[in-house]
């Protein structure tokens, strides 16, 4: 009778402890992935900075040619939105905050009269967006944990194609940026046309210090001429931006997952403690009841023997 409740509780405690082992393991794995992801971000930095430097110089040299590829379009009639999330969940609000920002952006653009074409990276984007009635034109999955440059290439090619073909005026990217171990947030950036680095200096956060310096004394030679070079440069610059966004999103994902799993582990501990307390009380109650019964039974027998 009373043992039944105790057994149920014991079973639950065991189940919570098993879950805790899993969350603890996931926490440790995520933690080890964070440092790897961070290393990849810093390994990518020289390339990204070098690419930014070249774009700045080329844009400065031929403003007319640059105007086609750089700057912010005044009138946006159609736009590509690329959302970057993860393939896996169990990472707190990581996926949903990017997807909610995407949803808001799409609604806002649609309300402004623009046609929106959606692309996404990460399995979690499909379900969320499709369920809410947004059509995802193309979705990439399978590399959100460890993006390779070739993945970035594939994504960049697909996301940039409508712009290259002149079908859209703008390509926007929604992803989680990894600023530091303690600071990640969702950001929307313009992928194409390339943000004009010479226009708004404040627009780009972490540029190399070289950029602040005035132009080269004399001039820079270009091989081939700037216009052709910019044409080749733009797709590579987009790839580089997509790659760094993927790297940062991966690092942010692992950080979010580690945090979520640490919280889950802690919660499991708490739950085990509470359940044990209840279980102990139930056991005590059972024992007390049993003693009472024995005493009661003995008490009932005594007068019978005495008589």
């Amino acid at each position, binding site marked *: 009778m009373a043992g039944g409740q105790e057994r149920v509780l014991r079973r639950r405690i065991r189940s919570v402890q098993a879950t805790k082992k899993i969350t603890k393991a996931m926490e440790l794995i995520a933690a080890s992935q964070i440092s790897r992801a961070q290393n990849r971000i810093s390994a990518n930095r020289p390339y990204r900075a*070098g690419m930014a430097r070249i774009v700045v110089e080329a844009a400065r040299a031929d403003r007319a040619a640059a105007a086609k590829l750089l700057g912010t379009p005044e009138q946006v009639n159609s736009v590509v939105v690329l959302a970057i999330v993860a393939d896996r969940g169990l990472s707190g609000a990581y996926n949903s905050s990017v997807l909610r920002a995407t949803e808001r952006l799409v609604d806002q653009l649609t309300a402004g009269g623009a046609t929106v074409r959606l692309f996404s990276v990460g399995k979690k984007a499909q379900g969320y967006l499709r369920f809410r009635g947004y059509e995802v034109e193309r979705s990439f999955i399978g590399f959100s944990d460890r993006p390779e440059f070739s993945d970035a290439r594939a994504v960049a090619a697909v996301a940039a194609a409508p712009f290259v073909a002149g079908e859209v005026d703008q390509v926007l990217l929604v992803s989680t940026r990894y600023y530091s171990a303690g600071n990640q947030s969702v950001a929307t950036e313009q992928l194409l046309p390339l943000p004009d680095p010479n226009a708004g200096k404040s627009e780009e956060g972490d540029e190399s210090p070289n950029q602040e310096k005035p132009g080269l004394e004399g001039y820079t030679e270009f091989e*081939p001429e700037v216009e052709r070079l910019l044409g080749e440069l733009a797709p590579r610059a987009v790839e580089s931006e997509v790659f760094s966004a993927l790297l940062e999103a991966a690092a942010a994902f692992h950080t979010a997952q580690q945090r979520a799993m640490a919280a889950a582990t802690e919660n499991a501990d708490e739950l085990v403690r509470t359940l044990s307390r209840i279980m102990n009380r139930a056991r005590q109650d059972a024992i007390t009841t049993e003693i009472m019964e024995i005493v009661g039974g003995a008490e009932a027998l005594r007068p019978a023997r005495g008589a």
Partner: protein
Amino acid sequence: MADAFGVEVVTPERALLAGPATAVMLRTSDGNLTVLDGHTPLIGDVVPGEVRVEQEDGTVVHLAVHGGFIQVDTRPGAAEGLAEGTGPIGDLSTKVTVLAGVAELAEEIDVERATRSKETLEGRLSELRGSGSRGGGEAGADEGAEIDLELLDVTTSLDRANLRLEIAGAQQPV
């Protein structure tokens, strides 16, 4: 001996090389280019091929670069921002940056792997060519476009494998 200047060869995944050098030889779409100290500022494209970097002690590092860009930067302090991990390299005023989506050091090329991928790619290529000419009429436009895409993919990969083999071969002592 020629003066040294800062050189970095970087890919999105990592910096392949960063440090002082005395000459960089590569090929742009306008022709072969050798950069020595005191070169004018330059930005150019790098066509797929070999990039050679001559170091201060005279040894030459060979790299396979599968397309990219080069920047010669002569602004004061340019070389200070050399790829992380190497630190500033003295008072060098010129910095040459080679950016490449895909590149590798000749000594790190896996010849066996490149040979193997070359073989599979060549096989796939002839397969694709065959189906392209055969299915010309009946295959839908979509399918044709897909084959074209894969053809492009296979061709670039094959070019890479060939370049790797060529450069790894050049590296070996004769």
